[in-house]
């Protein structure tokens, strides 16, 4: 689950990491009185969940309240990097002498967390990591020991700090790892972490991603993860609630499968034979009747869909359960869109029999089924 900048900063402040004074607003009339307590000039920042806001015009600066209102008018409701801006963070603009980068992420190869720090933070950090790899200090964190203060000090020494600054920087890094552990975080990033003229370190921007699988341990965020507009549209949220992963695409062949790899391969093969997938829908492992019914309803509700291709390989999922659910859904919804099914695996014979008895086309082979689905979609034109 991706957090908005203001949510990430809320967590940082709980751990004593400094952030600029700011106010969240969602209307351009600026009724929020606490804005008056902020000192001009302001940074006015669209709250969206993708990187690269500044370059995309999602962050503006203002020197007066009048100008601030104009900025809000411009940003609220606009689309930046394909996300609609519905909330904006107004912050005091901070003067700084240096931009750093601090982050902790998952390192798949080291099978642990890795801390990343750089004295060349800011929006070009990715390019920096290519052009000046030595300016990026990475340290794999020992899972048994965690990130020790002594490790953090070594890293910050390499960034060129000493004395009091070194201590307070190292402290920030140690706290970041504490946040990682306390909130089950996949990624936390402060970029830039700026050094101000009076020697403080302030988090100007921050990104946090919480591990979806751990949300059951963090109920307030679990609730928020289903908010409309956060990452997903309303249909995607419905799907997510029952454990489905749905992504709308713009073709006409609806696709349902079990297992991400298989669904990806199904999209590939439909495209290979000249068809256009309407969506990605992964049932996951051990799909229930309820999940299959809902997934069919979701895909068949898409008016672009001319044919539905269900591709199931039974392991945990049982083919007879799938067949029964498909027939029940067709009967219940009285849907006329043709359905093509590919079944293989646990209880496939029973599953196939049920489908054939109910006049639903069923295949053994994925390629044959894909070719047939494309053929039908063309006839519907």
């Amino acid at each position: 689950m991706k957090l908005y900048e203001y949510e990430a900063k809320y967590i940082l402040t709980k751990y004593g990491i400094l952030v600029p004074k700011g106010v969240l607003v969602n209307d351009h009339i600026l009724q929020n009185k606490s804005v008056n307590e902020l000192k001009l000039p302001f940074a006015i920042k669209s709250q969206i969940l993708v990187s690269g806001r500044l370059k995309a015009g999602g962050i503006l600066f203002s020197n007066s309240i009048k100008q601030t209102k104009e900025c809000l008018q411009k940003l609220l409701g606009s689309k930046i990097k394909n996300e609609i801006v519905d909330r904006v963070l107004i912050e005091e603009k901070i003067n700084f002498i240096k931009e750093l980068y601090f982050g902790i992420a998952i390192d798949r190869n080291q099978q642990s967390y890795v801390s990343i720090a750089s004295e060349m933070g800011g929006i070009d950090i990715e390019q920096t990591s290519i052009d000046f790899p030595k300016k990026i200090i990475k340290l794999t964190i020992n899972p048994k020991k965690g990130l020790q203060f002594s490790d953090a000090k070594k890293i910050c020494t390499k960034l060129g700090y000493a004395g009091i600054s070194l201590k307070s920087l190292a402290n920030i890094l140690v706290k970041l790892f504490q946040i990682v552990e306390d909130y089950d975080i996949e990624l936390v990033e402060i970029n830039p972490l700026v050094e101000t003229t009076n020697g403080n370190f302030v988090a100007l921007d921050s990104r946090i991603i919480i591990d979806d699988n751990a949300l059951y341990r963090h109920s307030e965020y679990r609730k928020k993860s289903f908010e409309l507009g956060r990452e997903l549209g309303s249909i995607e949220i419905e799907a997510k609630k029952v454990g489905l992963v749905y992504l709308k695409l713009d073709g006409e062949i609806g696709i349902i499968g079990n297992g991400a790899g298989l669904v990806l391969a199904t999209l590939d093969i439909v495209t290979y034979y000249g068809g256009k997938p309407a969506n990605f829908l992964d049932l996951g492992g051990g799909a229930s009747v309820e999940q299959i019914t809902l997934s069919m309803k979701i895909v068949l509700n898409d008016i672009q869909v001319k044919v539905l291709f269900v591709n199931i390989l039974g392991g945990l999922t049982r083919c007879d359960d799938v067949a029964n659910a498909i027939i029940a859904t067709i009967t219940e919804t009285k849907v006329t869109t043709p359905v093509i099914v590919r079944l293989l695996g646990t209880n496939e014979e029973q599953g196939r029999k049920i489908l054939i008895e109910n006049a639903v086309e069923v295949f053994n082979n994925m390629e044959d089924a894909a070719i047939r689905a494309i053929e039908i979609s063309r006839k519907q034109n």
Partner: protein
Amino acid sequence: MGILIDGNTRVLVQGITGVQGSLHTQFMLSYGTKIVAGVSPGKGGQMVQNIPVFNTVKEAKKKYLPNTSILFVPAQFAAKATREAIDSGIKIIVIITEHIPIRDTIQIIAHASQNDAIVIGPNSPGIINPKSCKLGIMPGHIFKLGNVGLISRSGTLTYEIAYGLTQKNLGQSTCVGIGGDPITGISYIDCLKLFRDDTQTKAIVLIGEIGGNLEEKTADFLKNNSYSKPIVAYIAGRTAPAEKRMGHAGAIIMGRTGTAEHKIKAFNDVGIQTAEKPGDIAKLLRQIIDK
């Protein structure tokens, strides 16, 4: 032969009293897998499919000497159950459970490597040596004994490809599902090393998908080490929409990896042929084997 398991593997099922645990215990038994005991805290003394159930791994270990465990334990309790297996001296642990928090996985895997235990998964369909031992949830009848080693991080796609090989009379030595999570225990590279030393395995199929850089790392390994057995690869997700990315850390750690093109190129650069679609894998293998 084959790798990691065989007909003499003595299997413990953790979470044996659950719906999936008991169902797949039945399927594994009828395949011929030697399941000797099960564990479910609080359910000790029961029998599931005629297999005795214990409260702890330690008790089961003492009485029936399992050397390998398979986990069907719910995600919230999976880390604890794995730790228990490791601490009781089990050396191979197959984790079927999906949705385990990554923080737990990191701890499990660190603990396993400290104790010389091998973790397969999490979120793995399991491992199978056709005809001798099925340790997982895969449908047994689509596999066939033979000389192809198969490694995959996708569950159902593994079945898809194994089925395709079987149809073309290309049997398998061992099929390993390393698991679909960002962090898993056994890796492609670990499996390649094991297959290299396995006399039964003559060729290897490597199934990858978009995301992460495991495939690229595997290509790196093959560049720097001589590997005598032929490998054919398939990468799922050529036509997938690009994910909206957040933050820079991913790019800093992994560079510009992750796309299907990048992975395919990495494989091609070290002389590994990649199939355009799953159905072509058997064809490519045939060409290599018949050469």
